[in-house]
């Protein structure tokens, strides 16, 4: 076991994928000599060369469009979008081309691409550096959308995403890049869970919190605080947003009878709405309270001096928990 930050764990996962498959190439802005602005690709160009760790021109649509072309030639490109807010110039290529290609070819051609997006707020950044656009991608058939919350998942899920024959949007919670955990880098080690499955990361009996990416840590902290008050909270790390592992959430709600969905993205038309609808359909008679949502507001992501008000935190999560019990 090795102590790794999330950034270093994803780096180790990328390295392992590149060692195992010579067709894996990395593409992005500043990912070579600099190692990426978050250093997630640190050292990889030195070891794998400029042809496999490709510093690209500053054009996101260009990155995704050319990556699709490379995938058609048999490569497995892993693209880095430097910040969440910069994915939008590539939104057209991702949704109209990458997502649809396999269906348009009637299954003749798969597009094994991974699009890594450091996402979410909480780092005091300027505008366009703190977004959580997962719902926009989950709404598009043909894409898989996953979100890692910790170093172990960062290490394994990036490898699973690269091995996937489907295009994967891979969200990395940038404010958790420096959080550490023990990761088993032994070549014989294996992932404990497929990347299209959610995980109960803290068992509890009274209420379920479902979250992904950066909010998993927040929910675990909330659960710990609530435990001190005698309330037993179960936390589900969703891990995958498309497909959504509804079964795991439903199983949890069948035990607890209450659900709060937590994400940084705006609640309006968000993941929480989808999950609330699904859980309501399947757990209607078991629910003790409506499914509640905690998330960003229907406002542009605010200036960083007030982002802590915008972002769900321990208090906002516990406030929703209290409301769920007040029904």
């Amino acid at each position, binding site marked *: 076991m090795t102590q790794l930050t999330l950034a270093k764990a994803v780096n180790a996962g990328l390295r392992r994928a590149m060692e195992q498959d010579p067709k894996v190439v990395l593409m992005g802005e500043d990912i070579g000599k600099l190692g990426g602005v978050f250093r997630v690709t640190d050292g990889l160009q030195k070891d794998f060369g400029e*042809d496999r760790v490709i510093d690209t*021109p500053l054009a996101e649509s260009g990155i995704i469009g050319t990556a*699709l*072309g490379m995938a058609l030639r048999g490569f497995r490109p892993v693209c880095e979008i430097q910040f969440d807010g910069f994915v939008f110039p590539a939104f*057209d*290529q991702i949704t109209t*081309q990458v997502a649809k290609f396999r269906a348009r070819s*009637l299954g*003749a051609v798969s597009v094994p691409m991974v699009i890594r997006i450091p996402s979410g707020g909480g780092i005091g950044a300027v505008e366009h550096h703190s977004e959580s656009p997962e719902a926009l991608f989950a709404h598009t058939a043909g894409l898989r959308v996953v979100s890692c919350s910790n170093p172990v998942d960062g290490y394994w899920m990036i490898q699973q995403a690269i091995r996937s024959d489907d295009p994967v949007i891979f969200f990395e919670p940038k404010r958790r890049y420096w959080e550490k955990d023990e990761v088993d880098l032994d070549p014989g080690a294996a992932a404990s869970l497929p990347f299209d499955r959610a995980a109960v990361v803290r068992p509890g009996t009274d209420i379920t919190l479902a979250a992904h990416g950066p909010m998993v840590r927040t929910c675990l902290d909330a659960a710990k605080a609530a435990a001190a008050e005698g309330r037993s909270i179960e936390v589900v790390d969703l891990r995958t947003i498309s*497909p959504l592992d509804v079964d795991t959430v439903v199983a949890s709600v069948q035990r607890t009878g209450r659900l709060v969905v937590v994400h940084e993205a705006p609640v309006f038309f968000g993941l929480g709405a989808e999950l609330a609808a699904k859980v309501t359909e399947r757990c209607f008679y078991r629910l003790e309270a409506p499914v509640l949502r905690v998330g960003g507001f229907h406002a542009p992501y605010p200036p960083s001096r007030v982002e802590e008000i915008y972002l769900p935190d321990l208090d906002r999560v516990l406030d929703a928990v209290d409301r769920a019990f007040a029904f």
Partner: protein
Amino acid sequence: MTGRRAVEKSTTPTPASGSTKRAPQGRGTRRTTELKEEPELIQLLTPTGERIDHPDYPLELSPEQARSLYRDMVLVRRVDAEGTALQRQGELGLWASLLGQEAAQIGSGRAMRADDFAFPTYREHGVAWCKGVPPVNLLGMFRGVNNGGWDPYENNFNLYTIVIGSQALHAVGYAMGVQRDGGDSAVIAYFGDGASSQGDVLESFVFAASYNAPVVFFCQNNQWAISEPVSRQFRVPLYQRAAGFGFPGVRVDGNDVFACLAVTRAALENARSGQGPMLIEAYTYRMGAHTTSDDPTRYRSSDEVESWRAKDPLARLRAYLDREGLADETFYKGIEDEADELAEQIRSGCLALPDPEPLSMFEHSYAAPHAQVAEERAFLADYLAGFEEEGH
């Protein structure tokens, strides 16, 4: 913007002083966007069918090769006419005609080796023909039975791309892949004059230049992007843009199949030998409507159309064949018969295209199972089965 505002403002009633009425600001500062002088085209065949030489683009063709170029052009024109007819008869929802662009497509298409990969728009029926794609396959998306419907690897001809200019990036990426796996294939990105305004096309120029990718940008400048003339897309001749990106650009007579063949062949060889990208602007004309849904009489004059009819690419090659005594009536009759037969095949092939099964919409989006797809597929199957039980 100020121009428009000023125009609107000038139409509102003003106090009757009336003496200082100024020209709307926008109109006063607007410069003509007409190109003053059109540059020379690379030409190997004059509109009257006279063979001329170009120092940079020599071309040796046997009589048989010249005849086969003519044959291809006649046949794809027939493919196209059949597409239009099938749309008019309600068998296709839409058709995008290539009429007038046969030389550009057959010339460039025939320049490719089998392993060279083409990234078309949705109008490259002639290139598809050269690459060996059965014409009926092109009808699927226009008939609405699929959204693509062929295996791009089968003929190294990518799926048609409807979002304007997207495929230029795919072509460059594919070429970057060729650079990395040691092949010596080259790639052609097709696009039109309208697409030259798209960010994706310009980004593809940047990427191709930056990596010196083995790609040829083949722009069919057919003068019209639906209703918008080329003057709305560029202020300098398009091919001159290449210089700004750091690779060569040329303008070729797009109605001259010999020139299109020779120039594309040279560009592909350049790409193959590591000399990087090249932009070819094939100067041609869209003789028909943008698609069967379009009405070009609303935006262009019949004089203009007639002036281009005089430069018809098929008539030009036929004039050459006749002038040189390379073809006789038997030859032309043979091709006409072949075209009739092809048209019949297309027609019957079109009518035989099966409607997709409703549940097939779920089939190919994902390579591996996806829970949401599985759930919705099961729902729809069950729902549809309910009608069958009721005997509807």
